[in-house]
């Protein structure tokens, strides 16, 4: 198994074999990231393609500070956000009405669910909500930064996250046996 340093050096030298190895190593994980941001597989593969071209074009700028996978991942996330913005301009159209009597999060337990099902549920979110969910939950950005990245207010980011979570919960509920609701007192 060739380590990342050698692959990176090869890619910096423009070696095709190194580029192929790097792609094979990281493409599956990065497609997993892209699938969370995009609404379908075709878009996700477009973002993956665009992202890897950026990776190879800018790999000379990678100084080895921090994880290489993290660096690629940041490029993929930025590419995905640019792609969404370019194509649809973050839409925050109203998602279906959420009943106001929904129980608090503390009252429920979520049963394990397959990644494929969860990806489908996330993809059913409108672009704007999906981006907020991804940036907050998976990338760990605070609302302030999300607001800057997406060009929205901090409060919008918070409210959209809350709505998105409720939406996801209801979608999971619709898939019977996936979500188990229990009362706080058991």
């Amino acid at each position: 198994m060739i380590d990342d340093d050698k692959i990176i050096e090869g890619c910096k030298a423009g070696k095709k074999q190194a580029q192929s190895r790097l792609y094979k190593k990281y493409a599956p994980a990065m497609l997993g990231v892209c699938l969370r941001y995009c609404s379908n597989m075709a878009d996700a593969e477009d973002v993956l393609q665009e992202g890897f071209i950026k990776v190879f074009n800018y790999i000379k700028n990678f100084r080895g500070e921090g994880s290489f996978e993290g660096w690629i991942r940041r490029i993929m996330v930025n590419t995905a956000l640019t792609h969404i913005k370019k194509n649809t301009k973050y839409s925050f159209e109203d998602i279906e009405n959420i009943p106001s009597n929904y129980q608090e999060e503390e009252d429920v337990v979520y049963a394990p669910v397959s990644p494929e099902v969860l990806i489908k549920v996330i993809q059913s979110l409108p672009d704007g909500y999906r981006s907020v969910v991804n940036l907050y939950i998976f990338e760990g950005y605070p609302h302030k930064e999300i607001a800057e990245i997406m060009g929205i207010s901090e409060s919008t980011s918070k409210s959209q996250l809350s709505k998105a979570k409720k939406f996801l919960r209801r979608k999971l509920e619709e898939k019977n046996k996936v979500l188990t609701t229990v009362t706080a007192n058991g």
Partner: protein
Amino acid sequence: MDEGFNNIEDLLKGTLDGYKKQPSPKVWNAVSLKLFFSSSLFYASVFLLLVGMGLGIYFYYRTDNTAMETYPENEVFVSPKDETGTQEFLAEGKPVENNSKKSDNEQIITNKIVDNKQNTTKGISNSGTIKPVTAQNNATVTVEQDRPNKSDINAGLAGGTGYNAVTTSVAIASNTSLKRLVDQYPGLPGLNDNINRMTTAEPLLVNRLEYSLPEYFSFTSAYKDFDLVPKSDYGRLKGAWSVGAFVTPEVIFLNDEEKSTKKAINFDVTGIYGEDFFLEAGLGVSLSEDNGKYDIKYSQYDSVGYFYQVNSFEINPVTGEPIFKTTLEGLYDTVDYQTSETVNNLYTYLRIPLYVGYKIRDFKGLSVYLKAGGIYSVLIGSNESGADYTNDKATSIIIVDETPQRVHSYFKLSASIGFSYQLSNSVSLSLEPVYNYYMQPVYERRLSDKSPWSLGLRVGVLIKIK
């Protein structure tokens, strides 16, 4: 995690962190293709190709010029050819000494031997016969005329008044010289014969210079009915270099589920090098139309039905039944609507075509050839229209741009069968039905897994420049 997750964030992170999915092979193919075209290897290949072509052309023409320079120093082999007295001048590169072995009735005369004139004169007086004297006189003509000047040749070429001018200039000096000789040596039948024969249709001279001239300047074809284009030259862009200007209307089949088609028009200027096999490269612009699409969602306060508003009632005194007095009232609510708007967009690409071709047939000025190659296109401009939707009654309007983004650059393979018709020595018309296969979708956002293809008709003019 069989027990489940306490909140949705844990569920999402726990399930999807580290989630992997294998992408389809076409993603890597597209990545590597784009990397190739943006790599220095690509530019180096193009550079080497251009340098190679340049060197080839340079050496090709340099060799030709050398041939002109080594035109024999008025060494003319004069031979009585047949019994009828037909004579032929043959330019020979052989030294005089080698030719000295010729038979008695063949004489070698060069302008180095000043005495030749005297010999000639002697020959006339001694023999008084026709054959040798004729030959010697011809030789004398050559002696009179030093090596033809380049300027003479060029003047003949530039004159464009027919090929006789060239012939005379190159091989037999000038009519002025001949007339002077006739005046000087009246009654020399051989000389007169030759002067007369120069105007006949029979080719008299074959000159080494002819090998470095295009065929249509040759003696063998120039005298035959003054054909502008020799038969062997029909349909041929001889002389190797041509430039062409082409227009190609094209229909692009996107290969998507809707089987949609788009129109494009291309303008190319190319240089063509070669004869039966040829290379063509150039630059062009492509204007490609496409549709932009906007999804428009709006909410409007609208009628959703009606109901009867009871304003009052009274009891029927006879039957005791209530009688209601009502009015019909409309029922209004905010209703969501969805529509879409299609706009026309125009995209401009810079095209770099490179083809290799082979001429398969020549017939009376009509050539048929096969051509294949590639075209690299780079997006240089786009004119995208915005959605123009207004609705005064709408309470909210959301416009979502669904226009697929065009790729910045793409490569397509091209194959065509071409027909060209030669109008004159230097101008031809060409007509080429073209098939193109795009190596990748033209959209960033993939509409189809299949690459588009297109059919076009390339029409143009070719001008031979050398």
